[in-house]
């Protein structure tokens, strides 16, 4: 099948609901309409309103009821309409979903998936453009996954649904329909916790994820045209992070840049730089560098270009590190 990223998510939900009737899918506008992005399109018609339904307009209820369902034997796959609206549900995610296994020493567990479209560049209203992956990654007990292609979206979502612990599944909405790709109809998973080396290279390691993978690759293509050999890694899982792949790569290349859409300070790049520092310090030939937005509030559409790293900015910073 040739599918876009959003179609791959719909297909994965359909695929898994077909083989496991403990899966229930819900969220705001998720049932009848199929979600504001149509990620759950057709699922209510196919599986009935008990398995795919419109939640009440309340994020804490969406997450909190999912916790109860998961404890009592179901596998809820819930949608938060935009990650910027997850804060009323954040309390349930952090204080309960992430902790139930530990609090009951394994008696009760919360195998649920919380899907959220995230990220900027879609010319949206306030609270529709945030990249909040570190808030979840900093919470023990959660796993945090971000696909960057239709193929990965299916494989990672199936892995997330089958995972015995709560998984935050962040979907880069800017590339929901940006391109299509062959997605097998068969069952496959992409293991959570494994980064993917998109392209081997010897001169520098660049790590990115989500919508910025494509922009970063464009910058790298330009550099390759100039004769540089760059290794590009798609992190795919923010937590638990794949330290091994990153450290091995930087030990080989001696240079490291991370490109991300979350604000710079205390962001995911800081963690990656620590990993590089701890695991490849003596191999470094240039200061590890972050290409990330400034620590400002994501501006509304007319000012958003000041926030997101552009291909040109990425290219510029990568070249600086290569020529250090």
């Amino acid at each position, binding site marked *: 099948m040739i599918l876009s990223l959003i179609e791959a998510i719909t297909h994965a939900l359909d695929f898994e609901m077909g083989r496991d009737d403990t899966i229930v899918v819900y969220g705001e506008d998720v049932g009848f309409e199929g979600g504001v992005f149509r990620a759950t399109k057709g699922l209510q018609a196919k599986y009935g309103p008990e398995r795919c339904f419109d*939640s009440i307009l309340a994020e804490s209820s969406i997450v*909190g009821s999912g916790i*109860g369902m998961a*404890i*009592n034997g179901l596998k809820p796959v819930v949608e938060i309409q935009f990650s910027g609206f997850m804060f009323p549900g954040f309390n349930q995610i952090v204080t309960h979903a992430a902790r139930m296994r530990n609090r009951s*020493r*394994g*008696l009760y567990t919360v195998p649920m998936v919380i899907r959220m479209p995230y990220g900027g560049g879609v010319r949206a209203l306030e609270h529709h453009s945030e990249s909040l992956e570190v808030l979840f990654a900093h919470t023990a*007990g959660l796993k945090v996954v971000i696909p960057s292609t239709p193929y990965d979206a299916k494989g990672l979502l199936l892995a997330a649904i089958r995972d015995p612990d709560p998984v935050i599944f962040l979907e880069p909405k800017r590339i929901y329909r940006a391109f299509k790709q062959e997605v097998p109809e068969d069952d496959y998973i992409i293991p959570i916790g494994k980064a993917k080396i998109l392209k081997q290279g010897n001169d520098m390691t660049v790590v990115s994820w989500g919508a910025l993978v494509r922009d970063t690759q464009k910058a790298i293509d330009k550099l390759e045209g100039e004769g540089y050999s760059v290794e590009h890694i798609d992190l795919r899982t923010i937590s638990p992070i794949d330290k*091994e792949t990153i450290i091995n790569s930087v030990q080989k290349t001696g240079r490291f840049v991370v490109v991300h859409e979350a604000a710079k300070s205390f962001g995911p790049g800081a963690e990656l730089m620590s990993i590089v520092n701890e695991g490849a310090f003596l191999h470094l030939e240039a200061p590890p560098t972050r290409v990330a937005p400034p620590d400002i509030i994501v501006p509304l559409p007319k000012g958003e270009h000041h926030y997101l790293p552009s291909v040109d900015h990425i290219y510029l910073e990568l070249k600086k590190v290569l020529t250090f």
Partner: protein
Amino acid sequence: MFLELYDPLKDNMIQIMNPEGEIVKPEWMPELSDEDILQMYQTMVYGRIIDQKVLQFQRQGRILTYAPNLGQEAAQVGSAFAMDPNDWVASAFRELGVWLHRKAPLYNILLYWYGNETGMKMPESVRILPVSVPIASQLQHATGLAYAARYKGENSVAIGYVGDGGTSQGDFHEALNFAGVADLPNVFIVQNNQFAISTRRAVQTKVKNIAQKALAYGIPGIQVDGNDIFAMYAVTKEAIERARNGGGPTLIEAYTYRLGAHTTADDPTVYRDEEEVKAWEKKDPIDRLYKYLINKNLWDEEKDKAYRQERETYVKDEFKKVENSPEVTLEEVFDYIYKERTPLLQEEYETIKRRNEEVK
């Protein structure tokens, strides 16, 4: 019966037995055997003894923070008595009587308050979610438990407990709203003990009684004398059976009083006077049932003394076991974050272990 009869706007609380232990509404008296009533009494007394002993242990510096239940025993035991063994409970942290009625081992309960999560690894048959500290958040879990129960055709009801302060939380509203619109098999029990730590019920909400809040969710709300175990049992029973038969959720306000402190870290003399407490002591739920039992010749002073002594010894013995329980290992605190330790956690585990060895 009660749910049709009661109008929360009229503000008249359901009572079957008055503070003198007299049955004032014989036509409402639920069907209970003498053995049941004795068991109710003994469970309440048992809970009171646990509270009193643990407060002693706390003053002796043998246990850390504890939230006592003094005065709320009937609200807890009466409602728990109305449940089936396969019903679920989403509790907060002041529901000792519910835990005891569901046969949660005292060792586990004490181990938890002693500061060890392993206490919350209860036998599966207890079916109470672990102590939930963030106020009212557990009511959301009750809706999910109920949804799953109905989905699986389990025929069980999920009962959520919360306090009067908890009714101010958004989670209270969301849970009742969802349960109402989805007709979930839920019962929500507000233990209105008049205080959220020091903040009085009147500061919390302008409604005359908390049962009225149910009207906004299109579900029945009913205020019950929470110190009358028969009323608590009868009303909860009706609400649970209604939920079990597809009738949807009910909100029950158990009107009671916290005779003790919020927790051992709280000093209630700062915010309330002795007279108020004394007035409520006259309505004590345990004394009330004791009087009933004496009048019915079902119990006597001697039996009472013997029972209390036997329980005191048991509580002391169990607490000694807790004091001698195995220390929390480094493995334990790492092994329940995820089903399997992630490579990162494994690395961090080894780091702490190495440091422990190096500083030896």
